[in-house]
């Protein structure tokens, strides 16, 4: 086991950092609120130039054939830079396409994704339903090549920008995964009303592909969170070291510095779990439970780091004009994407009695 990044990964992170810097200011510098930013195609295309969306897809499908340790390095830079792009989304959608679609569709979509011409986005969550990978409210009917979907998926971030949606729907044969081409969504709500769709898989094949895709997307989310936490801690320690009150630096108050130390401890534990999860994601089959555990580790760290970073900045910490609140906003969203603490704990709890302890070696 070796956690040190390769030279290529360091170079990739550096290249992504450069791309993001050249792209310019995130929302905080424009004084915008912390609301999720919509799709920034110019930014996405510059990441396409840097090869980021292509990293994990096989070369024969038009990708680069690198791995999750690589894409994680890129995601961490996105988190640090406070820029939002549909990277984790394309990993989830792309992974379902990679494991379930026909050769022709797979090459077309993963190739298009790698070149920046296709944007497949997953449409999974159902409104007013607690997170579950199993669809309930969107139902599919049909057979063979003729399927239609009915129901509402929401929220679907990047839905309006998607060229394709990968949609989960309930079928008579269990969960179905479907592909909808050229979807129409004015906002984060995808209303399906007899919408025609292509069936990718049904039943057990669908369930295991969803579980794997969510694990892979989850790794990218963890990596992005680590970057955001890195930056939140950096800003906080800088602030403690420069802000003076009562004629002394805030850094002279141990009640604050010890809490910065706690933030660091949580962050490093989250980093270990994330790097490990990225290595796990490069194996097949993916041990999805290890990724769920990593997401729980990141959840705890993200809550602490996000909240404490704001608190130690005082009033300026809650403004849209300072980056720290934007980082916390993003961390809050990441930890509710495709699962949250409740759903992750509940899922792992169903298998708790299956093992004596959690082993990471071997």
């Amino acid at each position, binding site marked *: 086991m070796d956690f040190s990044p390769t030279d290529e990964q360091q170079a990739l992170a550096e290249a992504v950092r450069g791309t993001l810097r050249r792209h310019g200011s995130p929302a905080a510098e424009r004084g915008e609120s912390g609301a999720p930013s919509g799709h920034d195609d110019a930014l996405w295309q510059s990441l396409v130039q840097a090869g980021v969306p292509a990293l994990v897809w096989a070369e024969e499908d038009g990708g680069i054939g690198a791995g999750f340790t690589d894409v994680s390095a890129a995601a961490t830079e996105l988190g640090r830079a406070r820029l939002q792009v549909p990277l984790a989304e394309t990993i989830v959608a792309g992974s379902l396409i990679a494991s379930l679609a026909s050769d022709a569709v797979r090459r077309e979509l993963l190739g298009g994704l790698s070149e920046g011409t296709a944007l497949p986005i997953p449409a999974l*969550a159902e409104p007013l*339903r607690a*997170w579950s990978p199993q669809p309930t409210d969107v139902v599919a009917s049909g057979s063979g090549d003729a399927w239609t979907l009915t129901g509402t998926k*929401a929220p679907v971030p990047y839905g309006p920008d998607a060229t394709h949606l990968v949609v989960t729907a309930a079928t008579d044969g269990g969960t179905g995964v479907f592909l909808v081409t050229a979807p129409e969504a004015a*906002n*984060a*709500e995808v209303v399906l009303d007899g919408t025609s769709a292509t069936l990718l898989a049904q039943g057990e094949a669908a369930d295991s592909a969803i579980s794997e895709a969510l694990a892979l997307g989850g790794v990218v989310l963890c990596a992005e969170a680590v970057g955001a936490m890195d930056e939140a801690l950096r800003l906080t320690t800088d602030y403690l070291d420069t802000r003076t009150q009562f004629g002394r630096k805030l850094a002279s108050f141990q009640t604050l510095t010890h809490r910065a130390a706690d933030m660091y401890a949580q962050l490093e534990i989250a980093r270990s779990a994330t790097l490990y999860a990225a290595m796990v994601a490069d194996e097949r089959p993916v041990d999805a439970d290890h990724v769920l555990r990593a997401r729980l580790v990141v959840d705890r760290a993200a809550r602490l780091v996000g909240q404490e970073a704001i608190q130690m900045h005082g009033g300026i910490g809650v403004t*849209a004009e300072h980056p720290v609140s934007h980082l916390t906003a993003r961390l809050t969203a990441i930890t509710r994407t495709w699962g949250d603490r409740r759903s992750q704990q509940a899922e792992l709890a169903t298998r708790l009695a299956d093992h004596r302890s959690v082993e990471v070696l071997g």
Partner: protein
Amino acid sequence: MQRRLSADESAFQQRMRDYFTQEFPAHLREKVTSGRKLTPEDIRLSQSTLAAAGLATPGWPTEWGGQDWTPLQKHIWNSELQSAGVPPPLPFNASMVGPVIATFGSEELKQRFLPRTATAEIWWCQGFSEPGAGSDLAALRTTAVREGDEYVVNGQKTWTTLGQHADWMFALVRTDPDAPKKQAGISFILLDMKSEGITVRPIRTIDGDTEVNEVFFDNVRVPADQLVGEENRGWDYAKFLLGNERVGVANTGLIKRWLAELKEHAQQVRLGDGSLLDDPAIAARFVDLESQLMGLELTVVRVSGGSENGRPNPASSILKLCGSQLQQEVLELAVDISGPMALIWDELESVPGWAARSVPTYLNYRKATIYGGSSEVQRGIVAATILGLKG
């Protein structure tokens, strides 16, 4: 010790409940309980309505529209008001500048300001904090220099809540830069926000709202009779005010309403064949928060925090400390209950407003442990004044 309310207290509680739920304008309460934003007109209307009923400023002296209530009655008033979703009176008016003018102001200032302060015909904002003077308020640098029968004010305030709507500001200014202690050279003055030389710049908070401002003073001329009390005694008045600010600061009534609403929301979120409220992990968090709230409310009644003879009761610090934390925990649970719906901030046809607002509200309320004396400052007060731990 007595567990029950007396017959009189129960009757009082019923009277408050009847007024707030039956007589007070329903459209204003509806806005609050559905989480919509109140307009400045709504806020003024609410307070003038309460004032007409004698319910806007119960803590003031009776001759200026206050009520001779016990601390328990004040708590009942505040709880019933909050639980009915009545927009509370502007704290700047009702619990800050009003009591200061009533206690330390001249008869002329009282006549001039108190009636219109009670009704919110004058909207006040609080000009205490500055960029360099937050927790260390006594470091403030905005100056007021006496010239004839005027003060000339220069400097900057920040974090001025709702200053964009305010008619007047009460401010702490430095009148004696050479005072031996920095607390000793500070005065408490009243400024007309329309005065020449005042510029207000809104600061956007992370939720996208503009509820705080920077306020700049460039040779603003303030008539000397707008000084409250004595020159260079402003720090004492500010301490009195901050003690008052902590009355009702535990916000138990508000937290109770939030929890009740959140339970309804959790029931709307389906999980399997039931709802999120049936989930043992979510239910356990509700149970814990309800128990913590019970402990806090009982503590409010027990210590009935507030300022006595102008001296803040240090026990009120724990009410601010624990009340603000509890508010934040409830709002964090609201985000968890919204789950995947927390990924958007705009209501959709299929995603209700409460879910779409959960994250911006959660982020905005990180302020609760920062303003009005941060949690760190409150712990410092408890440690030094109650526990006698002075470093």
